[in-house]
């Protein structure tokens, strides 16, 4: 029942450093080597920050300078306990930033679009904020009936955390909610549900 060719479904490309930027901040929702997530950092002389979600209480989010390859400026590296921890610091950082920043986010769609929304609200233009997908395909699903967002959905039909409806997870994507559209699956014939498939591993 998934509807394909939906135009709002984001399409991602591999991240590449925008040479026109004066400062770069790369965000990842999991520990990944910098060179694995973005091209062009070798030899880049603009300051670059790399923030990752370590998903452990053993990190303190303090900046650590890491030598960069070649003659590039050192990378300021920070590890955060959780995505919420990173986003909290990001909102403070963006409030202090000036025009010239380029922001990059890589990870699951819920994370990268939370970053994109925060960037937009801070005044960044789409041409200053880049996203790429990595990791699980699991989705945030926005229930069009009760407006609740259910996270971590991996199946074609999901139970809404707000109203308990069985929702068809569509490919319609909302950049505002960083979520996909969910519509009641058995609205016309209550109780009649299509088979549930694991489609967003």
């Amino acid at each position, binding site marked *: 029942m998934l509807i394909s060719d939906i135009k709002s479904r984001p399409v991602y490309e591999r991240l590449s450093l925008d040479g*026109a*930027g*004066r*400062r770069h901040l790369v965000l990842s929702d999991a520990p990944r080597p910098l060179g694995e997530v973005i091209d062009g950092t070798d030899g880049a002389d603009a300051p670059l920050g790399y923030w990752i979600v370590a998903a452990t209480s053993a990190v303190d989010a303090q900046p650590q300078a890491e030598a960069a390859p070649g003659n590039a400026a050192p990378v300021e590296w920070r590890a955060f306990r959780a995505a919420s921890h990173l986003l909290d610091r990001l909102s403070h950082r*963006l409030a202090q*930033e*000036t*025009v*010239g*920043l*380029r922001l990059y986010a890589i990870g699951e769609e819920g994370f990268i679009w939370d970053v994109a929304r925060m960037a937009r609200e*801070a*005044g*960044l*233009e*789409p*041409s*200053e904020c880049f996203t790429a997908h990595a990791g699980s395909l699991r989705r945030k699903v926005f229930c069009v009936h009760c407006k609740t967002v259910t996270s971590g959905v991996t199946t074609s039909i999901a139970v809404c955390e707000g109203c308990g409806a069985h929702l068809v997870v569509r490919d319609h994507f909302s950049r505002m909610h960083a979520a996909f559209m969910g519509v009641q699956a058995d609205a016309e014939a209550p109780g009649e549900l299509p088979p549930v498939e694991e489609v967003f591993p």
Partner: protein
Amino acid sequence: MTARPRTMPLRVAAAIPLSPTLKAFTLIPADGGLVPPSGPGAHLRLNLPVPGRMLKNAYSLISNPADRSHLAIIVRRVAGSKGGSAFLHEEVEDGDVIEAGLPANLFPVVRTARRHLMVSGGIGLTPFLAYIAAFEAAGTPWELHHFCRPDERGVFEGLLARYPAARVHLHCDVDLGVLDEALLRQPLGTHFYTCGPALLMDTVMERAAALGWPRARLHSESFGGAAEGGEPFIAVLRRSGLEVAVGADTSLLAAIEAAGVEAPCLCRGGACGQCLIEVAEGIPEHRDHFLDGEERASNRLIMTCVSRSRTARLVLDL
């Protein structure tokens, strides 16, 4: 359906010389009532009857768009021009009536911007006077850097005197380094606008880009009026078989309209793309800001409001 009127009569309520070459005009509807709505950055096209022909010169509105009691412009007298500015400086007096087009805006403010940084040179300040009035009314932060000749400093100081001194920066030297400092400290969400001599606009746009400003934040005034005129040519309207002579001083669109053919159009300044027509034969001379490089190179499309022809005949799918 009745056609929307394309012009309106305006009466000169005040014509005040600001300097030997600058004159301010306050215009009110000749028939009473309110002036048509406009937005910050809009311009007004005046029909100026100079000997032998009718000029249609565009001037940026300096009046507060929210105040519909009048429109105001400042005209720089330009030596060696077609004579429109000289006509306004010498012939037009209080009480005279001028036919004008409806205000059109090719240089609008970005409404989602958090802050506005403006750089102007000389008479290029004019659209920003309307911008600033709107920003002050809305409480949006702004900063202006105005470059002018020392002998005109007093004129521009007077025009900006009512605004907070901390927002206004007047420069009489050509040191653009002062701009780097301003470009480097703007918070996210700032948009940048420039209006003035082409060399100034090109230079400051390049400076901004070099300091990390993306194209989406940079805006420059495009003078739609400057694109008019060129080599005369014949436009052939394929559907009707009509042959329209496009003179040296008229636009293709105006010539088509004068021949009684209704052609699509909106901004009449090469920006909106509404007047796009397919070209069947001939090579267009593109003067618009709408078509991309590929579309231009194809020679298959033309924007009739500003573009002309490189060939003696241009066959249009109209």
